[in-house]
């Protein structure tokens, strides 16, 4: 009940921010909140060119997909509050979708921990650190409250950034995967890949989750030994291939629709996916790409583009294998890595995975770098606008660049630390919270042996 009231309040705040013209256009000019790919002004430019019969992708201002163009082209004629209402509803819906997703995650972990406990795999000392029903009921509410009342999410909604739809489609994909809904999940995965290219890295963990009923080892096997027991046969391979084919079918469907809409020309791919992958636009944002490629030697440009874009991809399989029994954690970690290392990052990209952070609250006792993370995050977010102003005055972008580096550091520390905490928690579940060495001294648990 309280959640619904907070949801309505958050919707009202967002609607007020979008509809209030001076505030909305001031926010749209903020470099930390908008990027060339997601900016509302570039969508308006694309609409104007489309209306005049000029190919919207012949210029370099518009990078959105044709179906978005079609949607807003038809929505423009109605009441002036329709489009703000659309953005507000999308944002508030994302909050509730994330709440359901996090609730499904916690229920799954609770169920698995109960079965492990009843089979005797949990150490007797670790009963205190196990998930309780309180966690399962309370934490999803915190997830949605964080997303609804996050000032950065409100500001991103106020700029009418197209990121709102990216976040909505990714969270719908995650929710449908957690419910085991196969057709819907593949649809939303293909849609979110079509909109911004990076959710393609989420495909493998999602399919793993959908197949997990078939491939997860039975509960009678010790937690530690589960990594070596995969059940692999042709049925699973066939199912895997069918999911991949369904995904490619939907993706080809979206691309084909856009192709037909643009008069049977593939030019839009150069501007949309090419604009994301090759990062030609060097407008500053909170990411790492822009200054790197402003100052890049021409000889190495294509090499570094490939390295930076493939960098996220190298984490997919290792994380899947390491967190084989908790693929939701893989999805969360990959969402975080995409938010940090994608080509045109904003502060709004982080709001998706940060709002899911309360889901992992059960392992926060093992976080090591909390102070550093909070400090870096606060300083970088607060100082970034001022440092951008300093750039305008002193012609030196290094101040703003330092803030973007600090922001990347904060997020990197957070992702790495939560990953460490998850693994340490699992070790504590199995071996207990007080481990003693052979000679009776209390031991320190460190990452030592190469596994």
């Amino acid at each position, binding site marked *: 009940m309280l959640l619904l009231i907070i949801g309505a309040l958050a919707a009202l705040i967002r609607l007020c921010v979008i509809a209030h013209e001076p505030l909305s256009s001031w926010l749209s000019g903020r470099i930390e909140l908008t990027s060339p790919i997601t900016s509302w002004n570039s969508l308006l430019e694309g609409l104007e*060119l489309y209306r005049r019969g000029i190919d919207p992708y012949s210029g370099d201002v518009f990078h959105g997909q044709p179906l978005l163009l079609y949607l807003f082209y038809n929505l423009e004629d109605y009441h002036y509050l329709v489009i703000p209402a659309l953005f507000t509803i999308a944002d508030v819906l994302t909050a509730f979708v994330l709440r359901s997703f996090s609730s499904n995650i916690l229920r799954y972990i609770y169920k698995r921990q109960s079965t492990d406990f009843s089979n005797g795999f949990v150490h007797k000392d670790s009963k205190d650190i196990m998930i309780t029903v309180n966690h399962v009921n309370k934490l999803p509410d915190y997830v949605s409250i964080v997303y609804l009342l996050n000032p950065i999410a409100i500001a991103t909604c106020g700029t009418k950034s197209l990121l709102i739809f990216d976040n909505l489609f990714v969270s719908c994909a995650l929710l449908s995967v957690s419910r085991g809904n196969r057709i819907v999940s593949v649809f939303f995965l293909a849609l979110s890949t079509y909109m911004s290219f990076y959710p393609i890295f989420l495909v493998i963990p999602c399919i793993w989750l959908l197949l997990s009923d078939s491939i997860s080892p039975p509960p009678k096997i010790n937690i530690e030994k589960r990594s070596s027991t995969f059940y692999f046969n042709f049925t699973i391979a066939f199912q895997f291939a069918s999911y991949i084919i369904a995904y490619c079918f939907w993706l080809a469907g979206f691309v084909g629709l856009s192709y037909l809409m643009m008069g049977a020309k593939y030019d839009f791919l150069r501007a949309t996916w090419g604009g994301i992958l090759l990062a*030609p636009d060097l407008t500053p944002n909170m990411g790492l790409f822009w200054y790197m490629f402003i*100052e*890049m030697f021409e000889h190495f440009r294509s090499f570094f583009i490939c390295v930076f874009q493939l960098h996220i991809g190298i984490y997919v399989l290792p994380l899947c294998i390491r967190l084989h029994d908790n693929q939701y954690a893989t999805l969360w970690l990959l969402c975080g890595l995409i938010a940090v290392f994608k080509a045109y990052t904003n502060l709004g990209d982080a709001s998706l995975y940060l709002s899911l952070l309360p889901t992992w609250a059960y392992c926060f006792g093992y976080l090591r770098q909390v102070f550093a993370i909070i400090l870096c995050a606060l300083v970088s977010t607060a100082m970034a606008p001022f440092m951008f102003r300093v750039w305008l005055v002193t012609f030196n972008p290094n101040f703003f660049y330092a803030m973007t*580096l600090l922001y990347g550091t904060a997020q990197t520390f957070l992702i790495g630390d939560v990953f460490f905490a998850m*693994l340490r928690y699992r070790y504590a579940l199995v071996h207990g919270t007080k481990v003693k060495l052979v000679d009776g001294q209390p*031991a320190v*648990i460190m990452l030592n042996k190469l596994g």
Partner: protein
Amino acid sequence: MLFVIEIITSLLFISTLAQGSSQTDDLFTEELKLKPLPGGFLEAHFQFKTRSSFPNIAHYDLFPLAIGDIITQFHIDEFQLSLTQGYWRHALWGYSPQPTPPGAELWIWFSENPNLDIDKLWSGLTNTLSGIFCASLNSIKSSNSASPQIIFSPRGVSENVDRNRTFLRYATLPREIVCTENLTPWKKLLPCHSRGLVQLLDGIPLYSQPHHSLSVTLRRVCPHSSSPRCTDPVLELTQSILAVFDVSPNSIGEVPLKWSFSTLFKRSITRVCSLATESTVKFDVTEDSDSYKLSPKSREIISENGRNYANYKISEFISPIPGKSKSKSFTLNFNSLSAFKFPTSHATPPAVTSHRYLTGVGEEGGGVTTLITNNLHDDVDLVYMEVLPWATRVYLHTYRLQSSTNKAGIRWQYYRPGRDRLLPYHIETVLHIPARSEISLSYQFQRAHLKWTEHVPDPHHGIYIGSGVISIMSPTNHTAPNYYVIKFYNEALLVTLMTPDFSMPYNVICLSCTIVAMAFSALHNAITRIFSPTPPPSSTPKWKIWMTKVIDIVTKTIEKIKLKLGFKIKQS
């Protein structure tokens, strides 16, 4: 002896000249028009016209060989190149007799032949012209060239009136600086290098004036037949210099204004160019001709295009053969009498004026606003073209026209969006402005961030947006057969871009890759290692452990030495 040689050489000159003019259409004329302008300025317009037969240029004694080669090699129909320093203030001085924007401007009509690769010809031609005129025209690339759709119609005779616009190329370099290295090769194209009006063109006094412009125009004319269909066109090359001298008095109250060729140009004309059929100096005496005195006194007043000129034929004042009795040099002297006043601009303002400026605060974006004022008592239709560099990305959805009446409007608009590093933004609009009213056109743009190698030298100065071109199709009757086209330019704008730190490439690569490496190392560590219990770190600090080790080694060594030297070790 010398005298005989001079007579023979001059007779040879005259004979070749006579032969030249009677055989073909080869012709060379030069004239200088002087006109006082409002605000205390004097306009000096030099025009050197050379005509040659077409299509095969038979002789290169008058027509320059360099230009003739270019015409045949690059299949040129018409072209104009201009190098200008300073802005022609059309609101104050009226329309320019040779309208040019500040900087360099080049437009070319190529022959309409579908087999030609116009892009290749354009880049080859810009490089060749930059070599001929010592100007950096080779920085004209596809990223600052456009093909105007309505403006820059052919100025001469051509086969068909409505030509395919892909054969027209236009580019402007507002940043180009004009200096005496451009004047010298320009002078070399003239048939008379050091005789006639060219003697007045000295770089230093000419190039310290508020406005000076140098141009080369080529077109085809039909001097013989007056019918619309031209059967034998003739190539006409016009080289012109337009300079505006500031002749206002240096101090208040200094009313007797005097200037002469020696104060303006620091030179005078001492020789006659015998290759010229006409070599004249004209002074505009239409207004207030009795408030000043010109010396030498003019022998005739002629009337041209509604204005009266005092006409001085140079050959009447200087003998073609030096050493004869006529005066050794020709200098025009101007002395004002007490009633002299400079003409005022408010008496007859020009038909249409325009003013352009930048708007916006801060550097993330900005806007351009153009004001166009129609001073006539009739409605006017005009064409306005702007070509913006790709680094200022135009938001067409912010394009607005505001006017006090609602009869003003955009009749037609052509917009070609630019591509980063490939194409500029090209906006061409046909506007209808009612009588005696003003419109304002405004739009916003976004500033792009350039790679560190793409910035021009002195990047903090900024980049220039080239002047907008306004062309009035017919200010008078639309249906009149002899309509004329007035073309003028408004201001070029300077836009500062946000510059990166040019000393930082290695640092940036290291720092950005450090963040990537930090993420990679944290995740790699957690992925490839597993937890295991380890002994807790000892509580003694490291230096104590090291000290005990060192003391241990030292004592052991001392004991060994003692043993060797025969001391007995005390057994405890």
